């Protein structure tokens, strides 16, 4: 199924490329980022991210005005770099293009090269990247930028024992959970990017303009010599895949896995770790797995009544859909605003194995909320799982929403949502089950009354 309309998007389910490109820079130590374009793009994105993470989000802009648009934005871009470097003293500055810069044909790579020649004092590494807003969704912007950063920073290094862990847009709480699991097993790793500290900072008395934390440049340099890469990006095309880049360029073995959300996906992570390192799952984590199974048993019958609408970035939509499948929830609608050929293919085996009626599942790519809403109504969905823009499904159709993914802008704590690993899955699953229960209890009396009493009366 595709869009109702040919030329109109009605209530977008995705954002634009530069938005995705900002995030990686928030996960690198001492990095700043600047958009080359008009002031609005960066302000919108800052606002969206500030609402989700509840953290100050500084993103520079070259503030292109009419003159810059007509005669080229070189001057603005260089001036912007100077100001950012002066005020923030960053180690890295990411420069991302926007629709405007791309349309007027700005060659940011050349401009940055010139800038560095003209300013020999500058010690910051400047990474230009192309992220036209019309070139794809924020999902593609994110991975393109990761790849661009690797291309610029990594260099052939001595082989070492560390693992590269390349993550998609998961919450800072999830990143910390991932680290805890790896630390429990004494595994040495580089998380790339790591915004677990920068976008979910503890309160501290002295405010820092560039928050501490993030993957260090040295770590990124050495990703080329890692023992292996584990990347959570099964739905990402090879051309955008950072893990594939490391494999192609430096021969680092790549294990491309789904986000470890749900029991099977998390099992897969531990099996992979065992394959790479020979380490088996420690008892403490086995217990967490056992508790998840216990939770699943507790809730399986309630979940069997779930007819879910799952939407968001392809990678998130995939892992949530598989979580639904292993708990008896039918993911009737699985949707993403991004363009992806992989999501549907990846889902097929699971759907075949676990559902009587696979035709009841509607997988939709490159879509908007007008389509998702219609599909949800058709499927008689009783739960939605995805980011805040789906609140529209609750408001218009009464489908309760379990908030997950990005952006969460109408609730507090998007940065604290935990959903990966056995523990995270347990917490997430409880949120889903309880939302189903709450919805059921809320409507039970009226539904029964309407269905049976009223019917009986009118016969």
């Amino acid at each position, binding site marked *: 199924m595709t869009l109702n309309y040919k030329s109109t998007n009605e209530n*977008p389910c995705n954002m634009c490329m530069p938005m995705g490109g900002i995030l990686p820079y928030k996960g690198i130590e001492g990095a700043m980022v600047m958009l080359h*374009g008009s002031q609005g793009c960066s302000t919108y994105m800052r606002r969206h991210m500030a609402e989700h993470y509840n953290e100050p989000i500084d*993103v520079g802009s070259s503030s292109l005005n009419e003159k810059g*648009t007509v005669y080229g934005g070189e001057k603005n871009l260089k001036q912007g770099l100077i100001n950012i470097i002066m005020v923030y003293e960053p180690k890295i500055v990411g420069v991302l293009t926007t629709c405007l810069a791309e349309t007027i044909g700005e060659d940011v790579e050349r401009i940055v090269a010139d800038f560095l020649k003209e300013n020999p004092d500058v010690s910051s590494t400047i990474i230009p990247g192309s992220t036209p807003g019309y070139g794809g969704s924020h999902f593609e912007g994110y991975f393109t930028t990761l790849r661009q950063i690797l291309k610029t920073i990594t260099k052939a290094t001595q082989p070492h024992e560390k693992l590269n862990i390349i993550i998609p847009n998961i919450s800072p709480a999830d990143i910390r959970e991932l680290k805890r699991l790896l630390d429990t097993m004494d595994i040495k790793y580089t998380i790339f990017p790591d915004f677990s500290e920068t976008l979910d900072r503890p309160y501290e008395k002295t*405010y820092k303009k560039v928050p501490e934390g993030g993957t260090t440049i040295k770590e990124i340099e050495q990703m080329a010599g890692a023992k292996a890469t584990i990347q959570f990006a099964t739905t990402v095309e090879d051309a955008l895949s950072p893990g594939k880049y490391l494999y192609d360029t430096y021969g680092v073995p790549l294990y491309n896995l789904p986000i470890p959300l749900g029991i099977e996906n998390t099992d897969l992570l531990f099996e992979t770790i065992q394959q790479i390192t020979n380490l088996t799952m420690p008892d403490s984590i086995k217990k967490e797995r056992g508790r998840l199974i216990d939770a699943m048993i507790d809730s399986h019958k309630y979940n069997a009544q779930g007819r879910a609408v799952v939407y968001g970035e392809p990678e998130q939509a995939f892992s949530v859909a598989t979580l639904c499948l292993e708990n008896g929830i039918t993911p009737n609608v699985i949707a993403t605003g991004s363009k992806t050929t992989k999501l549907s293919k990846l889902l097929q085996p699971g759907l075949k194995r676990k559902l009587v009626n696979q035709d009841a599942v509607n997988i939709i790519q490159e879509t908007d909320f007008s389509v998702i809403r219609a599909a949800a109504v058709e499927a008689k969905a009783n739960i939605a799982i995805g980011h805040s823009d789906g609140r529209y499904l609750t408001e218009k159709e009464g489908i309760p929403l379990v908030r997950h993914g990005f952006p969460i802008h109408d609730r507090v704590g998007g940065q604290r949502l935990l959903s990966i690993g056995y523990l995270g899955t347990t917490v997430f699953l409880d949120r889903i089950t309880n939302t189903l229960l709450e919805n059921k209890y809320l409507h039970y009396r009226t539904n029964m009354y309407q269905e049976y009493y009223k019917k009986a009366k009118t016969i």
Partner: protein
Amino acid sequence: MKVVVKLDSTKSKKKSFIAERSESISMKGHQKSQVKCDTDSVAGSMSQRACVFCGARVVLNPITDAIHLVHGPIGCASYTWDIRGSLSSGSELYRNSFSTDMKEKDVIFGGEKKLEQAIDELVDEYHPKLMFVYSTCIVGVIGDDLDAVCKKKSLQYGIEIIPVQSSGFIGNKAAGYRAACDAILKIIKPEETTSQAIIERKSNCKRVINYLGDFNLAAEAWIIQGYLKEIGIDINVTFTGDANYEALKKATDAELNIIQCAGSMTYLAKKMEELYGIPYMHISFLGIEDTKESLRRIAHFFQNIELEEKTEKLIAREESQIAKTLHWYKQQLQGKKAAIYVGGGFKAISLIKQFNEIGIEVVMVGTQTGRKEEYDTIADLATAGTVILDDANPSELEQFMTEKAADLLVGGVKERPLAYKLGVAFIDHNHDRKHPLSGFIGAVNFATEVHSTVCSPVWKYV
């Protein structure tokens, strides 16, 4: 062109400032010169401003039964979907975000065809009477002829399809306000009519006014409508909170335009005076003093004793109802210091007065798009030592809030986390607030919100 950076890390305090910004910052009593305003943002200065498109969108979006179609790439539509907490008494169409979702090939080959198709599809689906088509950055660059497409489709369907010239780079948010007002002017243009007809219409309507610059956030326009009705004045159209096509068409029937949000609406009021002879007056319903004064001035305009008496009665009643509550808050808040960083100058002016009403001193005032006259007023109202700044950035806000030991910041979504990270209380004065800040009830809500944050027990732990 050669630009050289001198990185001098020894002068750490000075680094918060970008040299070009120095004229945009002043301190009352310490400087002869005015703050520089209404300029382009400095590149890399981390301005908190939005763009032309955003300015146009926030002004027009509350028109409830219109299709708001963004001609451009998806992000622009995505970030501005349902951007304001504007309420509607009727249609909900305005709460959708429609976009032509331009892709690379549309940029290369032009987007006019796609735009035409999008209009066709939307007319087919929703049968609207009114549609706004907003241009975004790239539309301005690739040169799609928005006017021509809108005109063609307008004729074809016999409905109003209004182009909004809001390419992001053609100025700042204020240019977007103007683009929105220009779009509104196209709608309210009365059909070909004799001057006699206008006179007749005017003599028929009694004490009917337009309310400009209220977007009906959290029912604010309805609250003011209630006050005015009570004293015998009807609101004809609100621009643009809870407005619809039918209402807009009657806009020229009013005898007076009152303006709340000066930044966005003064231009429209001036135009309406020029074209239709409707006089205008700036008012403010933020804070008790402003509310009282505004009601009196509006009543006075009609030169009618009965009306003025009713106004005094209303004021006396409303004021006595809230006096005790406000007094209590004032005692609690006495001596606290506030910093203001909001969009428009008029809002900042109201806020300074409102803080004074509840015993709070303002130590920093800034706006994104304030105008020269407004900065003059701000400078008059401010106490000595108050920092006044235009188009500030987080770094400057941090510096001055800390230096001036502000207990509280008023601002928008982006400023909130900054205030909290600095351990400072925060008041949302943004588009999506869910409680009204206008009128007498708004004054209480404001004090309650200030108290809830300034006096929260949470600050004991920082």
